[in-house]
């Protein structure tokens, strides 16, 4: 599961690069309908979200449940099978988007023939995860389990609602957009938030060897996140009754509470002891993720509060925030998790620890290079959009220098992904080789035994 998440990441970064290069030269790959920007971009977001984020998130859920519950995974074979069905679904879905079968709903572009695979395999994995959770031998719950258990249930509900009401029996008019915003925001803020924070609250104490500063603060974060995080996402220019954007903006501002709680908790748990950061590179990823979570959350709140011209959310600023959240926060936390979990799970050393360090620096630099220029570019763009005397083409041309820098960031991130995937593939290779060798040794030992008995 983690491995396929890594492979999806490499594919996704290839899409991201193609999409990014289109801004350098609009004619790049223009004659191939499968690779036009409007198809490559959703293919990228979907491979990142469903191929990487959800998959790595599910892997983390299963691992934390078995580890904290001191139990083994229920129906391991079935879960593995469902995971391969999930990957099949993502593959079909991404190909469907490239082939022009997108549903047109952002973050839900995969055509219905792919989503069926996704939903069923999610249900199966989720079901056995819940059984695993139920069978735990350590009855007392750690706060991470709260986060992950709620997340399991959350996706099943939002995904089924969105699919049923948007694709299977589409509702009329702008209700479609409202449901799509609701889904996207719940997926990103709540699902990714719950899983990412669950992992942070598990690994930061584990890797630093200190207890989590406050259990209650973490529970408070949980409640605030599910209460206020689930109402955001409706932009203020939306052609809907005015109470919806207003309510959405209010709850977004209130997500400041969980943000502050996370910041304090992580800060006090680390307690200024940053020596562990160099000792455990996996922790670096996770602490970076926590910082990105904060910054992206603050950008979202700031965007709602300061967007007096109602233009900011149409600019690259919004894209910068989303990339920082999905990539800087969630993916980074998942990298840390995977680097920590996989060697332990397989009993194999990480083949090239140096590549992991290189991956961290590439990814961190890449994110900064994507996020900073797009944020600045977005703010500049907002001011220009507010002035009707400036021609639109001039504005869109003036964003190009910022986009060029961000392509460099995309390139660094992609290079990081290649290192990451190489490390994992080599690890899997060694693991299976060792397993085969062990099996071979066992088999040959048997053979020798029987051979010895025979004469």
């Amino acid at each position, binding site marked *: 599961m983690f491995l396929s998440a890594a492979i999806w990441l490499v594919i996704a970064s290839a899409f991201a690069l193609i999409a990014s290069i289109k801004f350098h030269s609009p004619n790049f790959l*223009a004659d191939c309908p499968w690779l036009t920007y409007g198809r490559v971009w959703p293919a990228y977001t979907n491979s990142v979200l469903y191929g990487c984020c959800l998959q790595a998130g599910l892997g983390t859920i299963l691992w934390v449940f078995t580890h904290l519950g001191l139990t083994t995974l229920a129906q391991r074979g079935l879960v593995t099978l469902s995971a391969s069905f999930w990957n099949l679904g993502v593959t079909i879905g991404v190909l469907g988007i490239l082939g022009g079968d997108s549903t047109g709903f952002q973050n839900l572009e995969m055509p219905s023939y792919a989503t069926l695979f996704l939903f069923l395999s999610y249900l199966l994995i989720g079901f056995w995860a819940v059984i695993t959770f139920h069978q735990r031998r350590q009855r007392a719950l750690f706060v991470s389990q709260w986060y992950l258990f709620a997340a399991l249930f959350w996706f099943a509900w939002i995904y089924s609602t969105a699919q049923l009401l948007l694709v299977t029996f589409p509702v009329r008019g702008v209700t479609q957009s409202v449901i799509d915003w609701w889904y996207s925001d719940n997926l990103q803020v709540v699902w990714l938030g719950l899983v990412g924070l669950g992992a942070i609250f598990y690994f930061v104490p584990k890797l630093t060897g200190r207890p989590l500063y406050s259990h209650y603060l973490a529970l408070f974060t949980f409640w605030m996140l599910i209460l206020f995080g689930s109402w955001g996402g409706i932009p203020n220019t939306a052609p809907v*009754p005015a109470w919806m954007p207003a309510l959405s903006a209010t709850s977004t501002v209130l997500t400041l509470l969980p943000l502050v709680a996370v910041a304090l908790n992580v800060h006090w748990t680390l307690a200024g002891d940053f020596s562990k950061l160099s000792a455990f590179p996996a922790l670096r990823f996770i602490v970076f993720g926590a910082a990105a979570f904060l910054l992206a959350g603050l950008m979202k709140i700031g965007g709602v509060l300061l967007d007096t011209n109602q233009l900011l959310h149409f600019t690259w600023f919004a894209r910068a925030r989303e990339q920082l959240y999905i990539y800087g926060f969630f993916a980074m936390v998942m990298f840390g998790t995977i680097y920590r979990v996989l060697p332990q799970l397989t009993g194999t050393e990480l083949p090239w620890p140096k590549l992991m360090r290189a991956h961290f620096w590439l990814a961190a630099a890449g994110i900064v290079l994507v996020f900073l220029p797009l944020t600045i570019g977005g703010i500049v763009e907002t001011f220009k*959009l507010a002035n009707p005397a400036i021609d639109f083409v001039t504005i869109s041309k003036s964003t190009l220098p910022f986009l060029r820098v961000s392509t460099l960031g995309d390139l660094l991130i992609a290079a990081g992904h290649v290192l990451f995937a190489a490390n994992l593939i080599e690890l899997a290779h060694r693991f299976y080789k060792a397993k085969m060798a062990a099996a071979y040794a066992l088999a040959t030992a048997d053979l020798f035994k029987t051979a010895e008995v025979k004469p």
Partner: protein
Amino acid sequence: MNYGPVIFLAAFFALAGSWFGFVLTPQMQVGHLQQTNTIPAGALYPVARPGLARQGLDIYRANGCAYCHSQQVGQIGTVCDVLLTDAGTNQPALLEALLKVRQDGGQPLSEAAAKQLLAALPKPVLQGVTKEVADTAVKALAVGDAKPSLWLVPVGSDIARGWGLRHSVAEDFLFDDTVMLGSQRIGPDLANVGVRLSDPKWHLLHLYAPRSLVNGSTMPPYRFLFEKRRIERAPTSDALPLPAPPGYEIVPKPEAKALAAYLASLRADAPLWEAPVTVPASVPPADTNAPAGGTAITNSAPTNPPAK
């Protein structure tokens, strides 16, 4: 302690709350919208797009046009203009009223200029004022059969840019399936592109070669929606007026024609009760019954009126 059920219930109720708020309520409020009437003409709005444009929506969706183009016009507020169409019979009283109105409205006028203005009706007498000021002005000017009227003018940078006359409302998308409002403006807003550029031929040429029409455009060309064909007997009528290799012509595929028809059909400028708008006051009106805010009739619009 076994908190499993507690977590489940917590998540269940939190999510149920948000589901109720942003799925069920919008569906009850907006999902059951009916056609409404434009004001003051009373025409049904919206009307379904013609078949070809409807097919074009699918091409728009398949190629992800919405990732670069929004279809939501924003509006910061509404200001009022007062227009005088007929001076009526009591000229001196009107002149006096006009001077006072301009004084009160913060736009003082000399007597000679006021006389000039009255001689060349219909003319706007107050521009960009609040509803209260405009209402008082309309009352004050209604002396001796003079006909003042109140005009509502939405303002905002999108509107100043010419992207629409008013902000987008839920009714504009009543018959569209899939609704694609877009989230980013890498390209211009398209909510009213059919008003600005109503000729499908322009759109075809622009899709094939954006930079031939818009200098410096960052839009990628959509040449795969066209085919290069050998000219049979005579050039086809819908071939693009572009230089092609001798003996060949560039012809839009059905997808391109549908997409161009869809783009040309995009117009969301009908004046509605939720989004009152009257044409700029410099244009002499055909009908002086301009809507005065919320007093206009409608019974089929459950949407809240925008904050004034």
